[in-house]
């Protein structure tokens, strides 16, 4: 079972490759393969999570080469949690897409699987350059998925998304060049050790490397002023894709957390860029909540909520106490699942309103108004952070652990703006209906997928304690980078 760590990468990878082999475009077979893969990932991710919860950090040496020379995968509590979250999100997202969205372009299922491979790889790898490679895997797959379907709006957004990320990749390479050029290593743990032995010009260069990484991760995470690409990209992606993308920004957050926690929490460059991250995160929070208020489409609104959540998370991370990090992780789980569900919901609404789509103007009521209205209400309450759902728990946890008045103001004020925005949106979509929309029934599997994700809101609230205990345990391990370093480099190194 030692190989289980790599399964979250290999299962979707092989599924993706097999899907490529299937040239005859038998959609049922493709759907089956895709679903089989994500369903197989579920027990794997859960087992890994359980294993990691034991406290031991597992290291998988690819090619049997010892760190720091070969690439290692590292399963600690944090990476296990992220993999699990990704998998849990992927199942409903794919289920939703399997209801015909996957036919709107070529290679959807293969792209979806390889997207998962990239995300899981990014979470698991313990090597900075390998992180770059997995970033590229997940990015190129996301380009394909974001552009899945057709339409000028999607392409316009796609061009922006792609070009910005290409610039980001170039910057990442510069950072990696600096990392190697100063510390002579690429392994994260080794880097953490060696960066603290630097002085003089090399230390200055390593500082720039770290800051450039923040910029790159900030771009992935969609921090101000790097989030402008996100609303259009997410709002124009097909629903299943948008739902899956809810975790993409978290890859950026994860990357910051990982590198920061290992290398910059203490030592020569302690607190690197923390103030800048803090300010950017707060501005993100503020501007994204303004964006929520000003959004003209539901999808765009949800996309801005994703950006808001990034601001919330990064600001929490900038405080980076184990307590705040634990709270942040809880919030991360909540926001990922709920915003994923809201993307699906936005699509359900759009489908039920015909031409108007998810535009926030009065029109025919969506099919299944009462049910969707209820789901919207639940999702909105959760995402705004009103009780009694997960968002409230997350916000309380964050507010308790981040004792900064400014953060409180922005978090609560942002919540208020979101409240106003979402209540307007809900009122327009579900109340101000000018007659009924299409009389078709809601598609059951689509509804199921949406409900599954939005059910996270009550579930995470009811079981807030065990989840928080878990995330706090993750944070506690994260706050002891030496554990990670020892596990990877074998103690003595």
């Amino acid at each position, binding site marked *: 079972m030692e190989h289980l760590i790599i399964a979250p990468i290999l299962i979707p990878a092989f599924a993706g490759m097999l899907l490529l082999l299937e040239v005859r475009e038998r959609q049922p077979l493709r759907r089956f393969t895709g679903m089989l893969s994500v369903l197989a990932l579920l027990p794997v991710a859960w087992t890994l999570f359980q294993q990691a919860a034991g406290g031991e950090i597992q290291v998988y040496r690819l090619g049997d080469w010892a760190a720091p020379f070969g690439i290692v995968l590292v399963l600690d509590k944090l990476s296990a949690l992220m993999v699990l979250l990704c998998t849990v999100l992927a199942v409903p997202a794919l289920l939703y897409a399997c209801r015909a969205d996957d036919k709107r372009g070529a290679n959807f299922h293969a792209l979806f699987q390889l997207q998962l491979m990239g995300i899981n790889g990014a979470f698991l790898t313990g090597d900075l*350059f390998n992180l770059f*490679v997995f970033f*590229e895997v997940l990015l*190129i797959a996301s*380009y394909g998925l974001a*552009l899945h379907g*057709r*339409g*000028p709006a999607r*392409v*316009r957004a*796609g*061009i*922006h998304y*792609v*070009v910005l990320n*290409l*610039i980001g*990749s*170039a910057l990442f*390479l*510069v950072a*990696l*060049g*600096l990392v*190697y*050029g100063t510390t002579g290593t*690429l392994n994260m743990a080794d880097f953490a050790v060696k960066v603290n032995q630097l002085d003089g010009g090399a230390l200055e260069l390593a500082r720039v490397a770290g800051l450039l990484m923040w910029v790159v991760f900030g771009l992935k995470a969609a921090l101000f002023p790097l989030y402008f690409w996100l609303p259009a990209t997410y709002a124009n992606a097909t629903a299943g894709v948008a739902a899956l993308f809810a975790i993409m920004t978290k890859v950026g957050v994860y990357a910051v957390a990982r590198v920061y926690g290992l290398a910059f929490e203490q030592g020569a460059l302690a607190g690197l860029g923390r103030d800048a991250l803090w300010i950017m995160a707060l501005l993100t929070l503020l501007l994204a909540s303004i964006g929520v208020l000003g959004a003209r489409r539901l999808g765009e609104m949800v996309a801005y909520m994703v950006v808001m959540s990034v601001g919330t998370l990064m600001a929490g991370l900038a405080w980076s106490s184990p307590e705040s990090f634990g709270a942040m992780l809880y919030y991360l789980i909540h926001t990922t699942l709920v915003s994923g569900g809201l993307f699906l919901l936005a699509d359900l609404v759009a489908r039920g309103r015909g031409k108007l789509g998810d535009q926030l103007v009065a029109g025919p009521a969506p099919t299944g108004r009462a049910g969707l209205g209820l789901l919207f209400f639940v999702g909105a309450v959760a995402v705004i952070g009103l009780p009694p759902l997960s968002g409230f728990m997350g916000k309380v946890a964050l507010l308790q652990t981040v004792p900064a008045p400014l953060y409180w103001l922005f978090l609560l004020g942002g919540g208020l703006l979101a409240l106003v925005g979402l209540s307007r949106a809900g009122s327009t979509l579900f109340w101000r209906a000018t007659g009924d929309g299409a009389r078709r029934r809601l598609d059951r599997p689509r509804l199921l997928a949406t409900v599954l994700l939005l059910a996270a809101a009550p579930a995470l609230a009811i079981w807030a304690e065990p989840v928080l205990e878990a995330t706090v345990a993750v944070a506690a391990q994260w706050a002891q980078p030496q554990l990670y370093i020892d596990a990877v480099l074998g103690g003595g190194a």
Partner: protein
Amino acid sequence: MEAMVAVMIAVLVGTGVYLVLRARTFPVILGITLLSYGVNLFVFISGRLALDQPPIVGAGPSTDPLPQALVLTAIVIGFAMTAFLVVLALRGQGETGTDHVDGKRDDGGEA
């Protein structure tokens, strides 16, 4: 030699930056390509310069092989990305009827 390589990198990155800031897809593609050249060279020189010391075992002293492997990976990935961007530009041209990065038509309208 080092100074000259640094200047090369600086110029490649600089021109790349300038071009990615243009309004049409084509110069952006050029910019990304130039930027990649510069960045690849940057990663390459992180192993320091060495003349006539190819990293082949048994052929005398050897330069640092690791950055070379990294750059090779980066070149391939860069190629894949460039190709995607080129085709995306075509898709943009096809869907919006213009090669403007924001889909703005020359007549000021939007597709």
